[in-house]
């Protein structure tokens, strides 16, 4: 028989946002390949991609086109919070569940939308955790916030600030910058002029992140450059970042949700399959996309077969264990499990250790 579960994928495939889209697609393709070898409950999976361009209007158009022409049973994606937020009313009206991984804005699940689910911890969950660990375990009292001027950058920085100051820490400066900044020497110089700094929470993507880390080291602010400050950060940076950044990354402490050395079989299998297929190390984006498909497969196994039943299945998920951790949704459809959040620290030989702070 040829029953199919149709999955619509809204990924940014053009413009700078395609940074996410390409990696998402890799994860999805891997998952599909694995699932369709056997099928699930007699269902094959088919995915249709639409370029949602990381921007509200194009995302709306893409979502409507998906819904009208492909008629998906479930939609995964957008990475950018603005786009996800713009799409949410549309999926609600069309009654198709949306499974999101990478948008961190709290607004997506507060108040919840019955048709939208998120498996990644949102900005608040990450921020509270990071602030508390910085204050308690790292004994940090003075912080400088560096963040890109985007929804995610500002949102994450705000949450950190609130929680860090609530605990008694002090934020010396909040420095936001556009995505078009290339040279961070001026910013690093300014940070260097602020006196003693303990932690520098940094919220940017890989490209600018590299430049920042190198500039901070060059200015002698961070450990990598002979200073005392430690950069900390959330889920955004991929593995291999420290190799690219070199010595400058020394001492960088950051959260990862996907740990390629994770000993659980599901993670080990994913890593080896991914390397076999693509001949490179997987990133958290790959893993999240993979998990989205695999979670849907799990729901189908539990009886999901159309939008409504898939939505119910998603909501009923209990302790599903994916590559990026466990999944269980609260009443707002936010994943509440944080069990695979790891802290890791970059060592002098550019390897890293997991700090086991959870």
């Amino acid at each position, binding site marked *: 028989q040829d029953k199919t579960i149709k999955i619509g994928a809204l990924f940014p495939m*053009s413009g700078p946002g395609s940074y996410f889209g390409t990696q998402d697609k890799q994860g999805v393709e891997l998952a599909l390949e694995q699932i369709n070898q056997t099928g699930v409950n007699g269902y094959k999976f088919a995915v249709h991609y*639409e370029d949602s361009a990381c921007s509200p*209007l194009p995302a709306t158009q893409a979502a409507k086109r998906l819904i009208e022409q492909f008629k998906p049973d479930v939609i995964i994606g957008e990475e950018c919070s603005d786009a996800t*937020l*713009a799409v949410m009313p549309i999926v609600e009206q069309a009654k198709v569940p949306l499974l999101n991984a990478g948008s961190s804005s709290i*607004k997506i699940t507060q108040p919840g939308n019955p048709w939208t689910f998120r498996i990644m911890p949102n900005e608040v969950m990450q921020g509270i955790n990071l602030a508390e660990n910085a204050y308690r375990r790292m004994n940090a009292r003075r912080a400088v916030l560096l963040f890109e*001027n985007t929804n995610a950058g*500002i949102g994450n920085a705000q949450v950190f600030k609130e929680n860090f100051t609530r605990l008694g820490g002090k934020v010396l400066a909040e420095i936001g910058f556009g995505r078009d900044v290339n040279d961070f020497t001026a910013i690093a110089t300014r940070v260097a002029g602020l006196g003693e700094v303990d932690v520098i929470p940094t919220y940017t993507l890989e490209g600018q992140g590299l430049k920042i880390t190198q500039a901070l080291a060059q200015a002698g602010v961070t450990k990598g450059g002979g200073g005392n400050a430690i950069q900390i950060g959330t889920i955004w940076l991929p593995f291999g970042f420290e190799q690219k950044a070199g010595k400058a990354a020394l001492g960088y402490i950051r959260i990862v949700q996907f740990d390629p050395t994770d000993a659980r079989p599901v993670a080990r299998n994913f890593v080896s399959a991914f390397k076999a297929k693509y001949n490179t190390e997987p990133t958290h984006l790959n893993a999240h996309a993979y998990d989205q498909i695999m979670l849907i497969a799990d729901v189908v196994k539990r009886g999901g077969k159309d939008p409504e039943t898939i939505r119910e299945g998603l909501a009923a998920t209990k302790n599903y264990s994916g590559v990026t951790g466990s999944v269980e949704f609260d009443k707002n459809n936010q994943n509440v499990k944080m069990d695979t959040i790891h802290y890791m620290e970059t060592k002098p030989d550019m390897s890293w250790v997991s700090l086991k702070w959870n």
Partner: protein
Amino acid sequence: MSETVFAQQWLGKATSSRARFLGYLTAVAVIVTLPLVFNDTYWRTNLTVCAINVLLAIGLDFILGYAGQLNLGHSAFYGLGAYVSTLLIVKLAVPFWLAFVAGVAFAGLAGTFLSLFAVRLRGHYLAIASLGFAVIVHQILLNWISLTQGPLGIYGIAPPPALVVDGTVIADFRNLTAFFYLVAGFALLSFLLLSQLVRSPVGETLTAIREDEVSAASLGINAAAWKVFAFGVGSAIAGAAGCFYASFVGTLVPDAFFITEAFNILAMVIVGGMGTLIGPVFGAVLLTILPEVLRGLGDLRLVVYGAALTFVVLFIPGGMAQAANAVGERLWRRRSA
């Protein structure tokens, strides 16, 4: 050399008023039937986006094609219209149509402000000044977080209130078709008024300024004032487009009004054929629909789009209006021969 002018003659001046009347009737008929033909939400969405872009394109054409002011910052007025009206609604609970008027007026005023530069600057200096203006507006929207929410965005913006007469709902703008009728109707009205305006002495005056300001002044034309006027009108129309955009998409982030948007609008005007009003209408429709149609191409979509844009200007340099004109002329000649 004077390709656009010939197009103008054929499509503007030389057309009899009866032919124009028929044209408008056709336009109304087309607007009415379109959402009935394209009856899924995706295509109805595209139709509305087309209508919004038509507004943007004719507004820019009035500034660029008629007054000859190379404005690369049209996205700024679009954004200002959107933000001003939305903030009034969201923060001060101002009724939609009042906020609409305020958004239009504010965008118009911003245009007037920019035109103070246009009065003094020549050609490409104005182009970059207007580009700079658009960058500043975008950056202000981005950085004035306490007012605009910056990149955090504004969500859940309501559509215009339903049109209710005597307790019966005539048009509920949550309905895509009704929304399309609203925007398209407004665009048609704007087009009508603009086309009346450019076929009045105002059209000649603006053209004169475009061609040569010194000799325009020798005929008593106050170039500065007319440029201000053109900018004011064109940017106010863009402001209206912005108001519709916000309530249509329901989500407002500054990046929607990045300068690339201004380039898009400019491309619509040029591809359609500037200096005619009808050209930019077709340009807007083409360049809105084209990327959607190209979605099937996947990752190469924008490569093809870029190539298409290049080849359109390469092979129909006077824009679609001129191409239509040429075809029309050929047909006419054949008939009369």
